[in-house]
């Protein structure tokens, strides 16, 4: 169970996020939507430790994550992707995934020495499995910078999963994807959800959000203005106003 309570953040005088509560169970996809500047990415950055919250709490299975360092939060089971792709572009695809496994190393040997220990063997098969699942096996030896945009997006997700997280935060995974890739993305997210992962999905692509989210939280100007299942959200007056503007003249 992943829980955020009373999370607030302001930059200068501007309140970027006010008193946000969200909770996600394992095996659930929570959509986080809202117009530009509504505080979605701020939320993700607060949860993952890139920003320090002014107040509020973040908990994962009872463990407190609030304002911990980003690497500690990652180790405790929170993985994320970024709005603007942040893969390690000079490293190979395989190494991008392997680097994420480093935190899981129990033996010092796997960290410092490139010998093939049992642990290393286990990691290797996990890497292969991830490469397979994300259709990256054929490019596993290539530097990540040479991948196509869609492949890079997949690699970023695979890397996040290599951490074996309990909760996955996806920041606009659909941006720039073509329809085929979108279908693949929807399928993958649903698959991950079925495997018991909790997922928070920040996304502009509403069709995708409505299709795969169990629940949706809508932010506007840093405040939660609605929460509910896709149907409830699309019929919510406040949400329509937030998205389309004040005059309700649009059919």
């Amino acid at each position, binding site marked *: 169970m992943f829980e955020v309570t009373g999370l607030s953040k302001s930059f200068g005088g501007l309140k970027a996020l006010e008193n946000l509560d969200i909770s996600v169970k394992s095996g659930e996809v929570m959509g986080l939507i809202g117009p530009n500047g509504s505080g979605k990415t701020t939320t993700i950055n607060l949860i993952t430790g890139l920003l320090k919250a002014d107040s509020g709490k973040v908990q994962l299975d009872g463990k407190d994550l609030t304002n911990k360092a980003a690497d500690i939060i990652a180790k405790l089971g929170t993985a994320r992707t970024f709005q603007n792709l942040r893969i390690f572009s000079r490293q190979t695809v395989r190494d991008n995934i392997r*680097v994420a496994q480093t935190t899981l190393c129990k033996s010092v040997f796997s960290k410092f020495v*490139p010998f093939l220990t049992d642990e290393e063997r286990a990691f290797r098969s996990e890497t292969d499995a991830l490469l397979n699942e994300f259709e990256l096996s054929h490019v596993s030896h290539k530097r990540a910078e*040479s991948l196509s945009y869609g492949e890079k997006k997949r690699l970023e997700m695979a*890397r996040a999963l290599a951490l074996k997280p309990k909760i996955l935060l996806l920041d606009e995974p659909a941006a720039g994807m073509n329809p085929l890739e979108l279908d693949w993305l929807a399928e993958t997210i649903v698959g991950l959800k079925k495997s018991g992962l909790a997922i928070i999905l920040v996304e502009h692509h509403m069709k995708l959000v409505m299709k795969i989210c169990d629940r949706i939280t809508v932010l506007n100007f840093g405040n939660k203005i609605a929460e509910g299942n896709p149907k409830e959200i699309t019929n919510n007056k406040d949400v329509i106003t937030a998205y389309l503007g004040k005059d309700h003249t649009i059919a």
Partner: protein
Amino acid sequence: MAYYTALFEISGLNILLALSVFATLMVGQFSLAQVGFWSIGAFVTAILTTMHGMPLYSALIISSILCGFIGLLLGYPCLKIKGIYLTLATVAFAEVVRVFFNNLNYQIELGDRMIGPAGALGFRGVKVIAAWPEIYLVLFVIVLLFILLASSRLGMSINAVREDETAAAAVGINVTKIKVSMFMFGAAIAGAGGGLYASYSSYVLAENFSFHMALVSIFYVAVGGMYTFSGPIVGAVVLTLLPEVFRFAADYRMILYGVVVIIVVIVFPRGIVDEIRYRIEQRSLRHDTFSDNKTHNKNKKLPDEGIK
């Protein structure tokens, strides 16, 4: 023969300097402090071996540990400083070290004469106990460490930190620890290198470890390559031999040297080794669908900030 041996030895020393710059650059820190550590290593080793009769390797180990520790003291606060400011802080450090040793008077009577650092006159008569075998033994050990780094998960983490600190932290890498460790590692290499230099050259003068030398140490890395450790090695060797090749130009050979550095950096922006490696990779990717030919002609004219 002696001439070639000397070249070989100086190349080895310069490789150590280059590797020490590279070690900090591996985590994206662009440091001009290595000359300062080099200077500390040189004086400390000279004092230990010449004035206190310590064997070479013990003195080298003490020098590197000391430099590593100073690197820790310097590296921690420097984490707060980024980019160009960090570079300036490292310049300041190196300059303070230079001024310190330029004013250090610590002499003891040994036999019939006074020996030790004599302020601006430097330290004359350092015991000469290092030649190519010692230099290359130390170099071998350090290169071995780099090889281990390059193929281990730790090395991957280091590369990750260099490429994107935020993303590195997001996959659970302790960025602070890695950056400080690499800063220490670089300092320790310089400490050993400086010690070897002192024991090789017999005369240590603080003025020699100047801003000018710091710039040259950066040349090694920029010319050789800044992504894999073989780069700085190649760079140091090339730039050590270059003035010798240009002997025909007599007094103007250092100008030619400068010209070559500029040309190499323009033609091989990643450094010789990494640029060649990169081009080979690109060639093998040529058949891919990538829109290389559609590079953004307009963006090129814009400053970096223009295209976010």
